[in-house]
């Protein structure tokens, strides 16, 4: 190639890579052309040059053939190198999308047929050698941004103690400790919704747990003291906050008992209770007037799990049931503002106790497909304690560990009024680091 044409070629923008490839090809083809040139007498220096060239080609071939891990351009981190040198927290997001195709209209809180029910954003990391921090924000059209959970966990306490400070899902019952998007049904069981809250019961305060095994099986006791039991009742105002006295705070306890029946099966039988004061209406006066009254929820939950170890990717079964009872203070002293006469005012809160529960079963059909069913029953406060029942079935499909598609049918039979059918769709997805599989 003449100097001019080479200049033209460069000017026309031939990438440097092509030049590099040309040089390598030229070097690689050198031995062949040297062998073909039989008319030229070889000198000792020629032989040495040819030998050098062969060595270069062999070296190039060797480098190409080496495993990727040894390629300088593909260096692996040295053993023991930090995988997160900037110490960023784990950041993850979970989207919870709902479709409601119920024939008589949407049964969702906002009346939507399709909605982004919630996006949960989590930040999680070790804070220092003593604490771990977990923060979960909930973002939804209805509630905008809320702090779902934010707690500090002490990680270096003696005697196997775990203490948390902050806001967390209350350890009352079994499913309440599971994020709603991780449930195998679209919503929490009705008894939990009625007695604990539509989106589960959270509390802000102190959480302490201790594991022990005096009888050879796993036991855990969890106690909490939280700012209050449940959310404030909308539209009701009490003369003093329900937690003015320490006795008005929320207090809970849970005793977990777990047994392995075999390698493949196990059961958990646990007991929980929570008590605190909540606002209840006062009838006969200002409709916003409320008075504190004690409310407690006690319950037991049972879970049986079966998953054969060798076929565990394809087969599993869960049977779960919870029974809850709401205990209400039935004749509390009305706490009224100064100047308000108690004459003609009546306590308008619940004057009896209510019981409810559910049973849920889920069988794994295939590696990614599950069939579940749930039966709910609870004594409905709005129907003087008559039973409301619901039966539902769910088909879950997990394309991967990070996404879930679910279709559900439910027949809801209220204590008063006609039964309704619900057809529900759900899709959830998780972004970010791999999270542990809930147990």
């Amino acid at each position, binding site marked *: 190639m003449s100097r001019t044409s080479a200049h033209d070629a460069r000017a026309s923008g031939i990438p440097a890579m092509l030049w590099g490839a040309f040089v390598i090809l030229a070097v690689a083809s050198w031995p062949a052309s040297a062998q073909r040139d039989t008319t030229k007498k070889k000198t000792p220096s020629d032989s040495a040059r040819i030998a050098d060239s062969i060595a270069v080609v062999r070296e190039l071939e060797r480098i190409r053939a080496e495993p990727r891990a040894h390629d300088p351009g593909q260096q692996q*981190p040295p053993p023991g190198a930090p995988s997160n040198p900037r110490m960023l927290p784990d950041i993850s997001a979970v989207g919870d999308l709902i479709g409601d195709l119920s024939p008589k209209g949407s049964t969702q809180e906002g009346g939507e047929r399709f909605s982004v029910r919630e996006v949960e954003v989590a930040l999680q990391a070790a804070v220092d050698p003593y604490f771990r921090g977990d923060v979960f924000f909930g973002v939804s059209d209805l509630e905008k941004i809320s702090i779902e959970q934010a707690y500090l966990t002490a*990680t270096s306490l003696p005697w196997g103690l775990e203490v948390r400070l902050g806001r967390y899902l209350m350890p009352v019952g079994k499913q309440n400790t599971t994020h709603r998007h991780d449930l195998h049904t679209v919503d929490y069981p009705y008894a939990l919704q009625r007695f604990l809250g539509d989106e589960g019961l959270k509390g802000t305060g102190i959480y302490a747990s201790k*594991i022990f095994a005096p009888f050879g099986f796993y036991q855990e006791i969890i106690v909490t003291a939280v700012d209050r039991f449940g959310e404030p009742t909308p539209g009701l105002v009490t003369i003093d906050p329900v937690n003015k006295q320490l006795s008005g705070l929320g207090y809970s306890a849970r005793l977990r008992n777990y047994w392995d029946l075999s390698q493949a099966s196990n059961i958990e039988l646990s007991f929980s209770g929570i008590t605190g004061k909540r606002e209840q209406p006062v009838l006969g006066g200002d409709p916003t007037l409320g008075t504190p009254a004690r409310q407690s929820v006690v319950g037991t939950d049972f879970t049986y799990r079966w*998953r054969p*170890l060798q076929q565990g990717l394809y087969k599993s079964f869960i049977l779960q049931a919870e029974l809850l009872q709401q205990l209400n203070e039935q004749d509390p002293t009305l706490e009224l503002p100064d100047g308000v006469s108690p004459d003609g005012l009546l306590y308008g809160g619940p004057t009896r106790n209510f019981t409810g529960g559910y049973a849920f079963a889920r069988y794994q059909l295939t590696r*990614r497909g599950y069939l579940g069913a749930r039966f709910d029953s609870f004594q409905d406060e709005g129907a003087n304690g008559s039973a409301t029942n619901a039966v539902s079935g769910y088909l879950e499909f997990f394309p*991967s560990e990070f996404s879930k598609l679910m279709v559900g049918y439910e027949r809801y039979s209220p204590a008063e009024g006609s039964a309704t059918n619900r057809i529900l769709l759900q899709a959830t997805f998780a972004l970010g680091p791999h999270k*542990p599989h809930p*147990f």
Partner: protein
Amino acid sequence: MFLHRLTKHVALGAALVASPNAGVSTAQAQLKVVTSTTDLYDIAKAVGGDKITATHIGEGYQDPHFVEAKPSFVLQLRNADVWAFVGLDLEIGWMPLLLQGARNPKLQPGQPGYVDASRVIAVLDGARGNVDRSQGDVHPLGNPHYWLDPENGRRIAKLFQDTFAKLDPKNATMYDANAKAFTQRLDAAERTWQPDLAKIKGQPVVAWHTSWRYFAEYTGMNIVGFMEPKPGVPPSPAHLAGLIQTMKQAGAKVIVMEPFYDKKTADFVASKTGAKVLVLSPSVGGTKGLNDYIQLMTSGIQQLAAAL
């Protein structure tokens, strides 16, 4: 006087409560080792001998990615001195729950009892450039199935030797001797594998999952395709159709798979290609008779050579 005696008793009681190992005799003072897999367990036992007590969480016939974080495992970890795991996110689906549940300060990252065996391994398949889950259930830090290369078995043994010696220096000599004995047994076994390795070298095979990458690096078997289209993703019909073509073109005669995957799918591919399905245990205890690490490697190499 009464007050003095009471104070003494309270102090003694508090000391006993504060120190769970108080009063444990020397004979009982074995290191309590818990491992995530049976392979680490076996190597730990080989190195620790009777100076340790060891248990494992996962079983050899179980997919190690999907172990359930059962509370009974928390009890095992609660009083352990050493937690040894494969790392590279193999146990990410369950290990964090167990370690958080165990509340054992000795097993926290940075402590001598927190033993990530991958840190002594020359890791294969580390992610390059951008990595995301469209690539399947990838392990960005590298392929975690490294124990299926005997060189890595030696490295793990050395790691256990160092760990145990650090935590229990009075038995360091014994750990050193045990590790050497393990290495010598492995060396001797390796010499017997050479004829089989010669048969395997360069032979095209199909594997179900990327768990055989290190085994392939060691034996020289040539993995020309995977049953999984992407790591952790079950085979689709379209992928299997392509794989069948690949196998025919490459002349792959064996499909290597783990005992915990669905053999029917592999049988189908085998029926279309004339290949054999070879169910190989990837871990100690995966099938009957595989009671230790050297047997695991020996059996895998012998079975593969016989199938080719």
